[in-house]
């Protein structure tokens, strides 16, 4: 084994990690939002995931209500809560699309 190889590899790895840590301090805030991935697109995806999950919980609630495992009072209360959450998510999504 070449005696220099561990040293060369060590130096290479050090430079790589130092660059990884330091580079965020040399770029502007806007670039941070869009680098390495488009922040807006990521936000949209996250909100869509949350919306999908919210709807899934709603579907489960519907099934529980239909099979008698949730009382009418609870069903209305929980459905209203989920609905409010969905309204919030949809308005956040619309806000992102407008921007």
């Amino acid at each position: 084994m070449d005696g220099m190889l561990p040293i060369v590899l060590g130096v290479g790895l050090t430079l790589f990690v130092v660059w990884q840590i330091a580079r965020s301090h040399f770029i502007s805030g806007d670039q941070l939002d869009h680098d390495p991935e488009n922040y807006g697109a990521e936000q949209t995806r996250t909100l869509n995931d949350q919306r999908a999950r919210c709807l899934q919980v709603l579907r489960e609630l519907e099934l529980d209500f239909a099979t008698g495992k949730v009382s009418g009072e609870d069903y209305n209360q929980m459905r209203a809560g989920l609905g409010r959450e969905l309204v919030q998510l949809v308005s956040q999504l619309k806000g992102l699309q407008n921007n």
Partner: protein
Amino acid sequence: MTHGFSSLSPFGNYALCLAWGLSLFGVLAGIYAGRSHSRAWLHSVTNSTIAVGICAVVSLVVLAIGFATDDYSVQYIWQFSNRDMDLIYKITAIWGGMDGSMLLWAGMLAVMGALVAWNSRKQSRLLMPWVLAVINSSSMFFLTITLFLTNPFRYIRADFIPPDGNGLNPLLQNPYMAVHPPTLYLGFTTLSVPFAFCMGALLSGQISNEWIRLTRRWTLIGWGFLTAGIVLGGHWAYLELGWGGFWAWDPVENSSFLPWLTATAFLHSVMVQERKNMLKIWNIWLVTLTYGLTVFGTFLTRSGVVQSVHAFASTDIGWVFLVYLAFLFLLTAGMIWYRRAELRSERKIESVLSRESAFLVNNLIFLSITFAVFWGVMFPVFSEWLGDKKSIGQPFFNAINVPLFLLMILMMGVGPLIAWRKADPKRLLNTLIWPLLGGLALALVLVWGGVPGFYPPLAYGLCFFVLLAIGVEMHRGLRVQRAASGENGSLVGDTGVMLRSHRSRYGGYLVHVGVLVVSVAITASMAHKTEQEFTLLPGESFEIGRYLITLDGMKEIENPNYVALHADATVTIAKSGKFDTVLSPELRRYKRSQETTTEVALRMSLRDDLYLILAGVAEDGNRAAMKVFINPLQVWLWFGALIMLAGTVVVILPGAQQTVTVAEVSDATERA
């Protein structure tokens, strides 16, 4: 000294140092980013956490290269490898001893941290700096131990490089050992992620159910790996240890089982928090307990406080784990106290007869089993403190845990059918009556049919009850779906729609079915096992159960690694005289270590396993001393575990949850 920069090991050690330094940076920078809300520092800590993972993987790869190239200048490689070993076992030897297994653990933890960091870019900027600080602190703890106390890159303490190594323990030279420990470690390390999110939420003050939502998949993946790891370990023990069983309540087996129990409890109780915003503090404790128990397992295997067939030699690093555990629990208690106002439940359990209560009972059963197993494991230590060291074995664990497990099975049937908040007793009884009668009828038929004992018929009856309850639940769901589809739907189509629309729910039931299959297999193999010891001359036969075993002959086999005494035995069906198979058990003596192992010969079938061991040569020198077990329904244990894993995959996989239509959103928002 002939060693120095002649191998890559200094680079591996350097990568480990770098990982340690980066994890320290990650903790400090994470805290700073959390307090200052600085985007640049969050970006920086995200990248450094990914770099910790990269450096730890580099370190592991360098150690693997050292094993593959027989670099005996490194003490650990010399200790656990030799030139005659196959490449697969040279790689397996990485986790054959303590130093390498600690590096593997630290490496996997760092990779989990890197994955969390990679995904953090799309998650809350208020929460993530704290999450990354916590996950870096976990990595730092394990990297500290690896780097300063159990460094696998230490050079051998000799003035020359030995020409060959000591070799790996023969028991570990088994394909299962290539996958069992890494799978288990994947489970342990993945379960550190929910803890990091939970602590991150407490530290940042982002105490909504967001951390639960973000970690649900991590918890399921960790639980799946832990389940797979435990079952693989059981299968290894079954095939390799030659005692006819798969689980001995050994301290090391228990150390993987303890976090599995609390993780299972958490997976259930988290549903109450998601639905009803209750049990918040309870869930925080369950997550902490689960992570703490993974650390406790490491303490158990490394400290030498308890005796185990698996445990590594006694070392002086146990106290480090104890200090860390104490810190974990104090931190959790402190944070819960600090956030007590925000953690107060919005609702209370209103009725004993409710889904919330059922989940709580389920949790209490899991925690009772956890406590019983913990007590059994630690009893030798506690009794030694009182002056008289005693250990307790299988009878204790079975006596306590069998009734608790049966109670848990009962709850598996009742829980899914009971209503939230307050169930109507009459309605619940109407729903449960047929499953209950079915289970009772089966138990009575089995007693009448001569199935011995109290627990076995009860266990089969309860499993049947749960199976019927799942059937009732699915039938009710299908009825709702059929009503919604109207005249247009077909039975098959509606079933498909129902399963796809409620994938998590029915995936969970599939896991329950897997548990039932495992339970039946464990009951059958424990309660109806047959075992016999006998000696045979070539040509002689021995009858056991429905099998007739005839010894064809014995011979000695020479291998570069070992010398084996090999027997061939023909198995015929006793009643019909029909040839079935030839079994060839071996007794091996490994040349280097002089250790003896039994190689079990196994005939597996859906009905039972015929498990044959060659114990040695009887006193007269010609007779083969053998031991045979018939384990009924044993193979179903492994099938059941596969069903559990399949169910977990169904719950985890993204799919139906993502396909939401605009109409559904509008509909739901309109209703709001």
